[in-house]
């Protein structure tokens, strides 16, 4: 069963992957350094399919795409947060890390709670308590359906985005 790793407000990309650890393009190396100083037990404790629940402004700061890459490579299935910083949200969608905005879940769940998510519908089940994430925008949906932004543009070009705009 997937479990929740709960974080607070204003989790910056410096906390997710400090500058000294993003001197690589290797996802596995980034995954090992995920939250290396902010929560040193994270990368070793997280199991494939676990979910991060964050507070407000998750992923603020640097545009480093290393941050969602590190989270994804660590095995995290999705990030659910009360709100996301714009660049992090876009980066996560672009590389195929599901991100779901949901305000109501935050105060109702705790670290280690069992969670299951329907990525497509945004439905979230935490130990029988149901929450509904916000619906992503049409471009995010198009990218998620293709897998990544590179997959979308490579197969369909900008027409794929122009037709949903």
């Amino acid at each position, binding site marked *: 069963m997937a479990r929740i790793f709960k974080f607070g407000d*204003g989790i*910056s990309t*410096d*906390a997710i992957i*400090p*500058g*000294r650890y*993003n*001197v*690589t*393009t290797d996802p596995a190396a980034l995954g090992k350094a995920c939250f290396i*100083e*902010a929560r040193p037990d994270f990368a070793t404790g997280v199991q494939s399919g676990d979910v991060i629940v964050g507070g*407000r*402004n998750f992923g*603020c*700061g*640097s*545009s*480093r*795409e*290393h941050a*969602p*890459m590190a989270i994804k490579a660590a095995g995290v299935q999705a990030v659910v947060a009360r*709100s996301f*910083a*714009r*660049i992090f949200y*876009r*980066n996560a969608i*672009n*590389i195929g890390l599901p991100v779901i905005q949901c305000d109501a879940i935050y105060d109702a769940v705790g670290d280690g709670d069992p969670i299951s998510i329907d990525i497509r519908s945004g439905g979230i089940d935490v130990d029988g308590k149901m929450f509904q994430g916000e619906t992503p*925008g*049409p*471009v995010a949906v198009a990218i998620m359906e293709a897998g*990544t*932004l*590179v997959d979308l*543009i*490579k197969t369909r*070009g*900008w027409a794929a*985005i*122009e037709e*949903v*705009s």
Partner: protein
Amino acid sequence: MGTLTEEIFSRRLGRPVHAGEIVVAPVDYAMAHDVTGPLAIEAFRKLEVPLWDPERVIMVFDHILPANTVASAGLHKIVRDFADEYGVTHVFQEGICHQLMVEKGFIRPGGIVVGADSHSTTYGALGCFSAGFGSTDIAVTFATGRTWFRIPETIRINLRGALPPGIFPKDLALKVIRMLGAEGANYLAVEWGGEAVEAMRVDERLTLANLTVDFGGKAGLCEPDEQTRRYLGDADVVDLHPVRPEYRSVIEVDAESLEPQIACPPAIDNVQDLSMVEGTLLDEVFVGSCANGRIEDLAIVADYFRGRQVHPRTRTIVVPASKQIYMEALARGYIQTFMESGALVMNAGCGPCLGRQHGVLGPGERALSTSNRNYAGRMGSAQAEIYLANPAVAAASALAGMIADPRGIN
């Protein structure tokens, strides 16, 4: 018709464009640097298409310059090999990407520019719509010359009155962040206006536009005017104003009553008046960055340092934002002043701001910086503390070895 953002996109696309619309738009330039560039290059190569335009792709070595480890040298090599293979003409290793984008003439009022760095909002100071993106978005622009935007609504911030002596644009930006919070402008554009902005030189506006992303802004724009024309040395600056704009909100800030503002650890919106933190002992003072590393900033610091010594408790590190600024500082004698005062002067680039090369903070250390980020772990140890301030406060604090008020020092 509309906000500066709507005006810029409407002109570019040849039809009225309104906030909330999703558009695919051509850009003037796409920039990446030595840390975001390698990931952008990997994503670009997966697309298996030619480079859109080797003269409109800009690569800057600035975050780790020169390379300090084998790993960072490897990143640089990825960028150099890409630039050689695709004939990228604009490859720089002479300062911070954002300063160079402006200095080298890539930024025009009314333009649209994207950068693989969050502080790409900086170019809005010249009336250019510019925003930060991640590497994959920039890779797609490398391939196509375009990207997609959701046209943002706009917060208009009117800075009223004249800045009192000893108060700087940094204080105004931090005051606004104090008022709106770290995500106060998330997904929104910001227009900076009012008498205080009209009176500012472009270098000062660059500080406002730079810090816009630090309260979430997608872009931070100033109307181009006579100051812009003077800065660009060019009468051919487009006439660009908001036309009957509908703003998400309008914020009024009284510049005249402002005290020096300090962003305290561990968050950009934990802002206090200087008097609340005066006397805090410091291990390091950093003068530089894309927020406050320009010649006018160095001039402020040199004025305080002339004939004085920085406190022996405190490492003081000065990093000009670009080679051009460094050489101007040499010509004006500032560099000699800094060195005679006991400060360390490093080569132009991002410097200690992101804790990846020099000036790294150890556990329990405390720094005051003229940069724009004070997250835990930003400049080194997650157990270090970072205060952000204007260049005059940085100078006075370096001399005192503790956070100090520059007003009253002659």
